[in-house]
């Protein structure tokens, strides 16, 4: 059970099977090296995931990827310093169940900090107090980052919908102009 969740976390963070296997192995290696430090203050899964998250973040740092620190201040918007206000999608609705492939791709595009919190909370089901312990941040930060992650995912999914609609319209236009050309040719 633990192995699958750790592997899942690693795979979602790096999106590379070989690297995810490597990170999983490293996480469990840390477990064996540090098992005597486990005091039982937190749940074992929380403690293990803390090791796994540290392994993943260290690897990302080595790769030079930017992290979103969970202690960073909220991004100001143009108007006045509060959170970005994006009410409702422009034209499209994310109707029905969200396409899994699109969601996976959107998650891939999240910054590492947002991605980590989203995966831990919405995918793996950790509570904010557990995420705070895993990530070494406050509960408030965990909630804030999750909210931002979901908002960003929503934007990305809307972009996908817009692109699809645009492609459909262009295809329809192309079909229509073909039909017109054919009609002209027949008329002539």
């Amino acid at each position: 059970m633990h192995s699958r969740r750790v592997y899942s976390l690693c795979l979602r963070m790096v999106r590379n099977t070989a690297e995810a296997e490597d990170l999983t192995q490293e996480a469990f290696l840390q477990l064996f090296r540090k098992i005597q430090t486990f005091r039982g203050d937190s749940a074992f899964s929380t403690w293990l995931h803390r090791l796994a998250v540290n392994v993943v973040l260290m690897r990302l740092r080595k790769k030079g990827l930017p992290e979103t620190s969970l202690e960073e201040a909220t991004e100001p918007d143009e108007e006045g310093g509060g959170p970005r206000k994006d009410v409702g999608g422009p034209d499209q609705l994310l109707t029905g169940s969200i396409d899994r492939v699109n969601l996976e791709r959107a998650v891939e595009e999240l910054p590492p900090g947002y991605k980590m919190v989203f995966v831990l909370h919405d995918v793996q089901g950790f509570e904010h107090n557990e995420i705070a312990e895993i990530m070494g941040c406050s509960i408030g930060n965990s909630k804030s980052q999750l909210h931002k992650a979901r908002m960003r995912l929503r934007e990305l999914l809307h972009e996908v919908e817009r692109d699809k609609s645009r492609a459909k319209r262009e295809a329809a236009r192309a079909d229509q102009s073909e039909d017109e050309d054919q009609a002209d040719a027949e008329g002539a």
Partner: protein
Amino acid sequence: MLCSEFLKDFERWMDGERTPASAVHLEECAKCRQLTAELGAIALAGVRLAEEIPEPPERVWTALRAQLVSEGIIQQRGWREWWAERSATFPRPALAGAYAAVILCAVVLSRVPTAPVQEPVALGGLQSPVVALQPQFGRVEQKQVASVHGRNPAVIAKCREGLEIVDNFIALCEKTVREDPRNQVAREYLYSAYQQKAELLATMTEQGTGGTR
């Protein structure tokens, strides 16, 4: 309530903190309603993503084991498997042997005419070697059981079970020897029982000095 005010509390709303004013706004505002529904859908879709990931492949555990062995954190695979097999099978021959010995002893003793109860005095004033060894066995037993304690509860349980059977048999033979010091058969069975116990303790000793970090 304006949308801007709703959005200030939106994070708390998504966290489950519902206020009456926000609830009223949601009923009236289609855009905020859409936003709330879509974020909820994203959260639900996240749960389904958890079903997608398989177990890590076996090579991960093979490589992990090799690394742990090279760091000395765990022993070579062969030792652990040997012990697991030994602990699974060893008590059975010992138990079977002990039971067989008890049965044979009982059969033999029932046919040997017992002398009147004598004082438990060793022959020729010399301490019986068996009696002399008893305290040492007791100390070794406690030390070895303690060294194995906590390593593998199933193995511990089997060892204790085996030791208990052998101890009971030893007690029976000792009683017989005390009652009839000249009963050679009982002595031989007693020596055999101590030998079984020594073998069991020796096996536990090998496990206890397996040399983990």
